């Protein structure tokens, strides 16, 4: 079973954000990075795959199933989108906030199977000790783990993460991505993460997609994409591919000589 997108067009008013965009099959157990400059439409792409915003045309397939024609609830079980900004102050305990993901029916009561499921996930992510704490009391890294717990408890097939490391320090960036990669492989998720750090993307993700000018400019093996001049063009920087002592490829980038330092 794989995720594919064909001819997806999304516009805000007259501004076309995604133009006939297509993605080739992303398979279960694959962790793909979505790269692209600011305002390239990464969040829009995620939201349109998850069905959060109206799409002008195109289809999103999970295997043979067209997600665009699915009912909202069914789609929510298959795809989960984790937005960029995660709630800052909220008087809701970690346990409750994970439980919410399971409880989208009308019943007021909580089933013991739901409670067991939440407990298992909190234990799996080693955040059981935070269960009674309020979300607002957590650090950035802990909040991201809770967000992951909320995804795991639903156990979807597709996970779309919008800059999951943006508010984290280096240690937490590495640990969150390690956990995501491990879970993706173990549980067979199709995971796509929008990332800003090209080298982090290459380190953790097998595949990279580059989104620019409303289209996927390239999609392929991380090391191949890293070597492409397209990447530098998209970010308007000069890139050179280097190899670390451990043999890991990494991209070194500098501003173009004629680039405008004002935030153009």
């Amino acid at each position, binding site marked *: 079973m794989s995720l594919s997108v064909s001819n997806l067009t999304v516009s805000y008013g007259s501004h076309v954000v995604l133009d006939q965009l297509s993605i080739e099959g992303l398979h279960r157990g694959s962790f793909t990075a979505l790269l692209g400059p600011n305002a390239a439409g990464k969040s829009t792409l995620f939201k349109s795959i998850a069905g*959060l915003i109206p799409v002008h045309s195109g289809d999103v397939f999970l295997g043979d199933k067209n997600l665009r024609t699915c009912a909202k609830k069914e789609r929510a079980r298959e795809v989960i989108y984790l937005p960029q900004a995660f*709630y800052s102050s909220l008087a809701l305990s970690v346990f409750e906030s994970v439980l919410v*993901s399971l409880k989208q029916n009308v019943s007021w009561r909580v089933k013991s199977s739901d*409670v067991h499921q939440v407990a298992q996930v909190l234990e799996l992510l080693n955040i059981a000790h935070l269960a009674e704490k309020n979300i607002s009391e957590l650090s950035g890294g802990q909040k991201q783990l809770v967000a992951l717990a909320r995804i795991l408890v639903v156990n979807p097939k597709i996970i779309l993460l919008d800059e999951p490391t943006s508010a984290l320090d280096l240690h937490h960036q590495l640990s969150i991505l390690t956990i995501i990669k491990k879970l993706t492989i173990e549980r067979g998720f199709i995971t796509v993460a929008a990332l800003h750090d090209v080298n982090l993307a290459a380190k953790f993700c097998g595949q990279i997609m580059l989104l620019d000018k409303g289209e996927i400019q390239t999609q392929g093996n991380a090391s191949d994409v890293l070597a492409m001049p397209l990447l530098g063009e998209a970010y308007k920087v000069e890139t050179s591919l280097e190899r670390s002592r451990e043999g890991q490829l990494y991209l070194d980038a500098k501003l173009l000589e004629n680039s405008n330092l004002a935030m153009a």
Partner: protein
Amino acid sequence: MKVSNQGHEILQKQHDLISGFVASESKKIQMLTIVVVLLAISLVLDVSIGPGNFSFSTVLDVLMNRESHGIKLEVIIWDYRLPIAVTAVIVGAMLGISGALMQTLLNNPLAEPFTLGVSSAASFGAALAIVTGIGFVANVGSLLVTLNAFIFALVTCGLLLLLMRIKGVGTQAIILFGIAIFFAFNAMLAMMEYGASETQLQRIVFWMLGSLNRASWMQIFWGTSLLAIIMPFCMMRTWRLTALRLGEESALSMGVDLARLRIEILICISLLAATAVAFVGTIGFVGLVGPHIARLLVGENQRYFIPLSALLGALMLSVTSIVSKALTPGIIYPIGIITALIGVPVFLAIIIRHSKEQNL
């Protein structure tokens, strides 16, 4: 052997987690029960206090058996005091729920019917009826003021609803719109007052101060029926509302039909707020403070937050009713004045204590 030990340890940890959750749930239910008991005591106290103080036990007797202490007490308690006391509870609950729902829906702890202009619209409607006799419904006599207030409040909520339907309009815009409505209706009200006669002015001012004296069993019937429909309706949506507290996009991603939920809840808010204001006039603060205290006590899981906001709103207004009678024997102060007078210091104390605790 090691693996089985590890497995046992994990199971034990999960068991601890679950017991922790169950304990926190029962603590919240205890909290609700305590407020229910306090509310019952306050209700009986409210009935027993007034000119010609009757003892708590006498009042309980008459409440259990209408004729136990003669016709005089029956009339005083059943026809006069009880409707007022019950109305305080019902209106308080309505204000508490509508405040809680508004705060959740608009993601703003300052939202309540009063701050969003609903009450000012109702006041203007009432003033319009008092001064000009103009109303939406003809030939209703003394009900005109109440009906006008109700309809103006409802129309304002309808405007908020329409605004919500416009694509791209965020919650911030709705709050600003509410504030604009507040000022617009206040200005029109001032205009109305300016042109009013002395007697009309007196009636407007008295209406706006908020009073329980218009209470009747008919009002109680309508109020209870409304609550009996709206409360379960909201309780069936508490998980979806909690999901909304985690962010709009998160809620959408969980499959919540946000557009529909918003409209359903705003209709509930409109009916509750409009009815409450039409019954007793403008009573600010209850819709703000009730939910605020509820949030501090049980957090924002809406399945406890909404009922506790209702109970605390009811308790606040019931206590206010007692204070309004007990302050100066023989005088019943307008309840709107008392809510602010006791509400403000209590509210400030809670906020200061809470922020101190958070900074520790």
